[in-house]
Structure formats: C-alpha cells, structure tokens
C-alpha cells in the first residue's frame, strides 16, 4: 500500500495489493481497511477480479492433453502409463461443471452407488475411482470417511484438489463475499436458487435463470445486494430453497459427519487420491435439475460415464 506517513505517492492501494486481494493471497490489515472504505480501490479490485475470472475461465476450461498413442521421446516411455491415468483423473476435474448442480442431486440420480464397496470404478472410465461416506476425521491434507459398508477410507488431497461444500443457505453472507447468483428474475430482483462462491468451473443454468456476479452487500435475512464489477446493484431474494455452493475450502473446514463424495484415482494402501471432494450438507428436497456439461473428454471415458460416476458418488442422506 502506498499510504504511509511520509508517503507522497497515491493514497490508494498499489497493484501488488490489488492483485494479492484478487488472488486470495491476503493483504495486511491497513490495506484491507483502506479497501473497505475506498470506492476507487474497490472498483479497481473488481476490475482485476473480472480479468482474473476471465483468465481462470479460459484455463479452467482447458482439458487435459490426450495421451499420445506412443511416446514421442524415449524418456517418456517410462511413465507413459501412469501419465495416462492421471490425465484421465484430471479430466474429471476439468469436467466438474456439475458442481453447481450438486445441490440438486437427488437420490433418484444416484442409482449407480454400490453399497458395500469402498472404492468403485467410474462407469466407463477405468482410471477413475469414486467413494462416498460420512466424514470421520481430518488429518492435515487427508480425511477419513466412513463408507456405507462401514469401512473407513482415507481420502488424500493436494493443492490442486477441488474441495467444496454444498448446502442450504442458513443465514446471511458476509459483505464483500464474491458470489455468482443464479435464479429467475422476479420484479426487478433475482430469486436466488443457487449462490456460488469461488466456483472453479462454469455451470450451465436453466434458460429461465439469470446470473449475476459480484460481491455481497447489505445482507439480511431476506436476501442481499450483489454489487457487480460495474457498480450496478442487483437485489437478491433468498429463501429456504436457496443453496450455497462454496469452493476452495480447506478440509479442516468441512463439518464432521458431513456426507462426502469424492472422485479421483486409487492411491497406495487402498486410499483415494481425490481430484474432487465435496461435502454435501442438508439441502432443499426439491429443485430444478441442472444440465451437466463437460468441458472436455478423455479417451475411453465419455462425459456421460463420468457424469454418472460422479453422480453415483454423491449420495444425499435424507434427501
């Protein structure tokens, strides 16, 4: 930040602070305080946020490279096999646009789940495994879930694992929360059906929905206002049917006992190295079914089979 006692430069946040804010690297208290009260800097942060979302949208939509039929280099031959598997797993991550639709998973959609199995293959994609259960404990970057068969399963994560929480909106959202709100337009407002925080992938919404993105302001029990990057204020109404999907959370922030659905590849000693791990908290019993759309395909692993696999992994106790 530029504003210091002897600083004659601009009183506003410098670019490094703005970028740190937008990329979630954190800024110091003085910079944060300035950001909270400076309209100019908030507008700048919103502009950078829009640029960042644009870049992320491009890179997140990048499917994995298809594995070569034969290694082009002798040096690749040694690990061509494992690489194929990991690429397929990563493709599943790229494909998880259905995360926004996770709130609408119904038990009827989960017929692929196989009671008794700890890890089950994703149908049509032998490289991927899936598991579901309830969260028992978190140990650093891994967690132990209790599967339907009663067996414990260790799910490991890395920095690239997408971890999220989906559940009902239980209260207000903090001012400044970056959100994407989707729902039908209603008398100049949006009746929020889905509120997504830090979505790593795009979600295809029903045609009747409008989507607005920005930051939360003026939150109350009845809703909040979304302030778009351009400064437009859009009133949003929330209800007991509003679902919140929050991504980029850490494992230790998942509530114990939560239903966990995870997809990834089999690790050593029967573990699951998760590409995706989602905590599914109690949710509205009904809602529109979102269309599942994949950004990429992997050889021998069709989008439909991946969708079925992930859906099968995502069970919802109690609906």
């Amino acid at each position, binding site marked *: 930040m530029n504003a210091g006692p002897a600083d004659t430069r601009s009183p506003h946040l410098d*670019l*490094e602070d703005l*970028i*740190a804010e*937008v*990329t*979630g*690297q954190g800024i110091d208290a003085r910079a944060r305080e300035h950001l909270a009260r400076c309209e*100019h800097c908030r*507008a*700048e942060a919103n*502009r*950078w946020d*829009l*640029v*960042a*979302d*644009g*870049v*992320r949208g*491009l*890179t*997140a939509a*990048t499917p*994995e*490279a298809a594995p070569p039929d034969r290694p*082009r*280099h002798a*040096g*690749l031959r*040694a*690990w061509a096999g*494992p*690489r194929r*598997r*990991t690429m397929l*797993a*990563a493709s599943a991550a*790229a494909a998880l646009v259905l995360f926004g639709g996770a709130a609408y998973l119904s038990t009827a959609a989960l017929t692929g789940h196989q009671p008794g199995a700890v890890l089950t293959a994703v149908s049509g994609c032998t490289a991927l495994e899936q598991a579901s259960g309830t969260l028992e404990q978190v140990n650093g970057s891994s967690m132990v879930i209790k599967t339907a068969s009663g067996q414990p399963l260790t799910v490991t994560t*890395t*920095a*690239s694992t997408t971890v999220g929480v989906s*559940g009902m909106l239980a*209260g*207000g959202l*903090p001012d400044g*929360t970056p959100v994407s709100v989707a729902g039908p337009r209603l008398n100049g407002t949006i009746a929020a059906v889905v509120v997504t*925080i*830090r979505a790593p992938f795009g979600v295809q919404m029903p045609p009747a929905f409008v989507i607005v*993105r920005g930051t939360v302001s003026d*939150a109350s029990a009845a809703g909040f206002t979304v302030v778009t*990057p*351009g400064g437009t204020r859009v009133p949003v109404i929330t209800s007991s049917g509003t679902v919140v999907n*929050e991504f*980029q*959370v*850490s494992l230790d*922030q998942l*509530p114990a006992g939560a239903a966990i659905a995870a997809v990834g*590849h089999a690790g050593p000693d029967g573990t699951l190295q998760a590409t995706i791990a989602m905590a599914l908290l109690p949710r509205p019993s009904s809602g529109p079914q979102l269309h599942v759309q994949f950004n990429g395909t992997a050889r021998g692993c069709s989008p439909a089979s991946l969708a079925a696999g992930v859906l099968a992994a995502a069970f919802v106790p109690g609906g």
Partner: protein
Amino acid sequence: MDDPHGNAGARTFTARRDGGGDDVGLLRRIGQGDESAMAAFYHEHGRVVLGQVLLVAGERALAEEIVQDTMLAVWRGAGSFRGQSSVRSWVIAIARRQTRDRLRARRLRVVDDAFLADQPTPGPGPEVTALDRAELAEVTSAIRELAPAHREVLGLVFGCGLSLPEVAGVLEVPVGTVKSRLTAGRTALARVLDEKGQNR
C-alpha cells in the same frame, strides 16, 4: 455475520498454492527415476501448465507438444531443482522456455517483451468504462485476442496463481516490469472490449 455452513473461516481460505513441500519431495523421487512420482507430478501440474501454454501458444496441438517436452525436461532435470523458487514457478519457467523455442522455430512473431516493458503504466482512464460494463463471457473472449505477452502475464498471475515476484522470476524481469505488463495487459483488454462494444 452468519455462516451458511457453520464452518466459519471457510471463505477466508486462500486459493493460492502453498509452498509445495510435497512437490519438492516429488521432484526428488523423480530425480531417482520414480515413475509414480512423475505421474503424480503431472497430476499436480499438468493441467495448469497446459492451460498457461495454450494461453500463450493459442494452438492446442502445439500446446500439447510443448507440455510433453516440458514434462520430459522435468523427468530429465528434476535433480537440478535447487529450491530457489517454488516448484510451480520452476515448471512454468521450463514450459515458457519450451514455448519460446517452439514459437521461434515456427517463426511466429511474439510481442517484444522490451516494447511491452517500456510502456508507461496508465492510470484508470476511459477504457475502464468498457471493463466496468463487460460481462465475464466477453472478457474471456477478449483475452483470447490479446497479444501473447499480455496473455502470458495474465495467465501466470491469475491462471497459475504465481505471486508477482514469482512471475518476475519466470519472465526474468523485475517485479516493476511485471506490474507494468499487467497493467498494459488490462488496458489492452479494455480496448478490445471497447472495440467490441462499439461494433455491437
């Protein structure tokens, strides 16, 4: 303020990668010829590297070849990693060199770094209006039309999640130049958006 999930602090989670302690261990194992470590490394970094290379090269087939060459370089050179940068920025730097070599070999002209670096850092001007009015889909589309060097710096910061000093290390320029290039990239983006808006 209430927390919808009862897990206060979730929204303060940083999207930024950590220091990559596991990554260093992976590189050590790769250096010892551990194939599973190489697979894990690809799982960890492959998609980000491909995204960045594709952002710069703009051509899928070429980007895939560059990523293969990059991973081959990692396989061969993992033992040379000295921990003077994060593993993510190290592999991105390798990918960048591979990209430049390929683009030079194909005689594709890229925006001259020095030219970009010398551009003054413009403050907020009329072009911010275009950015303020833009929707995300328009921004995403407009980024594709930027010069490679602009796409590159934006991708390194927002796609790869590197800090500005890390980006400076990858680009081999001072941090100040990274800032100038970022701002120039955003200005160029706003101009593209403005042009698109006027043509609508």
